[in-house]
């Protein structure tokens, strides 16, 4: 129907939005056209982040097989961790955008480390808040639809299974973020990460080795992060051990992939919901979690709904 367009100066050029939607005001209420188009583009972004993670994992595995726990292997472990954290930041930023009242692209494009921390702390402390943007329907919503009692029960089971799956994935990503946020910052800003074998020595690396406990896994690195206080008269240095052995790296990989998948599914759920003009969405990608009988019931309900719309 309407073709919303928005000119944005870019030197002598303008960016024009060209997607179609039947209710531009509705798109605005759901976060605006920039957030909508960002979520519609989640496929390419997710594919890139996933392949980048897999490629980092392959490099790490090859190097580990060739060189055991060398510093080069540790560096590749850090690279994988950095890529996993970029995926986590994609997800955290998207959640931050959608948790706004109203949601907005600006909240995504200006998200701070502190705000990302809050999002991931809320996964642990206030999961119901974090699950809201996933717009899973309630019993009341479903009973208002043209659905039989059996179809409603199947839909509610799908909702429960999906909620549980999403929450598990969110917890995995939140754990990665909260454990490694400091290290991730180091990987992105100058890489002040010292290889564990050089920290421990012999000879040990002087003050850098103080308070560092050998994690008994190899390789590992120590992130060294300092802050200047009291008008540059005092420098406080913190050290964080990051394990880069095969098991730890595999955990980072799983969490990174979970972040990619969540960002894709959240984007898809939201974009479909905006496109159709419904305030909730049944997670079709989770149908495989249901029995064949339940799937058949929901397929039937959806066909009826589609026919009614046409």
């Amino acid at each position: 129907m309407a073709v919303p367009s928005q000119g944005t100066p870019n030197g002598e050029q303008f960016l024009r939005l060209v997607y179609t939607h039947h209710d531009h005001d509705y798109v605005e209420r759901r976060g605006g056209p920039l957030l909508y188009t960002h979520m519609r583009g989640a496929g390419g972004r997710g594919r890139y982040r996933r392949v980048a993670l897999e490629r980092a994992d392959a490099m790490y595995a090859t190097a580990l097989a060739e060189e055991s726990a060398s510093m080069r292997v540790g560096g590749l472990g850090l690279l994988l961790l950095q890529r996993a954290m970029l995926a986590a930041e994609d997800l955290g930023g998207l959640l931050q955008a959608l948790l706004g009242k109203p949601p907005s692209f600006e909240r995504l494009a200006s998200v701070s480390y502190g705000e990302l921390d809050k999002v991931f702390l809320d996964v642990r402390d206030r999961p119901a808040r974090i699950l809201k943007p996933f717009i899973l329907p309630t019993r009341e919503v479903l009973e208002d639809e043209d659905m039989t009692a059996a179809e409603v029960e199947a839909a509610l089971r799908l909702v429960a299974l999906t909620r549980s799956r999403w929450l598990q994935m969110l917890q995995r990503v939140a754990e990665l973020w909260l454990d490694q946020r400091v290290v991730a910052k180091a990987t992105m800003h100058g890489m002040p990460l010292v290889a564990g074998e050089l920290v421990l020595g012999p000879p040990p690396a002087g003050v850098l080795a103080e308070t560092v406990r050998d994690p008994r896994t190899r390789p590992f690195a120590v992130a060294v992060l300092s802050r200047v206080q009291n008008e540059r008269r005092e420098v406080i240095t913190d050290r964080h051990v990051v394990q880069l052995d095969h098991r730890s790296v595999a955990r980072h990989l799983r969490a990174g992939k979970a972040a990619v998948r969540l960002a894709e599914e959240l984007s898809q759920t939201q974009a479909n919901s905006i496109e159709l003009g419904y305030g909730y969405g049944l997670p079709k990608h989770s149908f495989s979690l249901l029995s064949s009988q339940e799937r058949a019931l929901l397929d039937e309900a959806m066909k009826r709904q589609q026919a009614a719309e046409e």
Partner: protein
Amino acid sequence: MSFDPQAFPDPHAVLLPSRAYLQSFAAQNLPAREAALDDAVAHFEEATASDDLGWRDMALLGVIGEAMQLLEDLTYIGTAYEKPLRGIAHYVTATVYTDRTPNNFYSSLKNWDDTRLKVLLGLYGYHPETHEPVPLYSAPGLHERLDPEDVEAVQEAERATVAYFRPILLHLAHEWEQYRRYYHAFKHGGLVINRDDVELVDESDVTRIASISVWLRKDEGTGHGDTTLSAEEVVDQVTRSARWALRVARHLVDARLRSFAAIEFADDGSIASVETRALPYVFRFPPEQVSEATRERLRERFGIEPA
């Protein structure tokens, strides 16, 4: 010749942590960054062969991201040794995060005189008491061993090294300014503009094709893109620049590690011995930039071969 351990900085507070930081940079960090860059280019080629434009755009942003990451790393180690916090080991400055470090470094480079570049490149250091930049050859224990012809040769090699690096650094400053916005868009949310939904038009409403375009952070609704280069040209340009940044970073690390090569540490971290013949220099320049006599003197007296 005996050595006086008191003439060296404290091994526990300065020498050993500095050495570990620099060795890690050389053996862990830079190889990882180089591998990431190569991998990003291969990823871009894979994505380009597909018909998934969204993937290709992100993969192009990924190449820019890995390339600019090297340019950013260089600024941290550069700032640490050129503008260190006073009273503590220089490497500590590289562990202090501020979002201004890369911009300050690159935007000020055009105003740097030769002395600042000599400090950056490891040819000068700061006097421990006056904090004035001084040539390495003026250090106690070193200058006594050099005759005037040695000093002249070192000075000529210093000038050639500065002349070699200055245009490279200015080029990197230009590249940082050109690509840093894409880099930030890549790192913080993957803010690539979705081609399916957004088109670029000029003032006459004629559609333009950008090789890459992103939403700017903290500036809603403003895009940033390039219509002058193809995606492949962008890849070529940023990877070349990243490899220059890698070379400069390696030089900065090697130049500082050279000072440690002469010191043998005992397992407890104390200084066991010092090789007094070595000169702590790494020069880099095309051979024709200095006289044959200078090259020969550096080689024969001190075993220094310019890289």
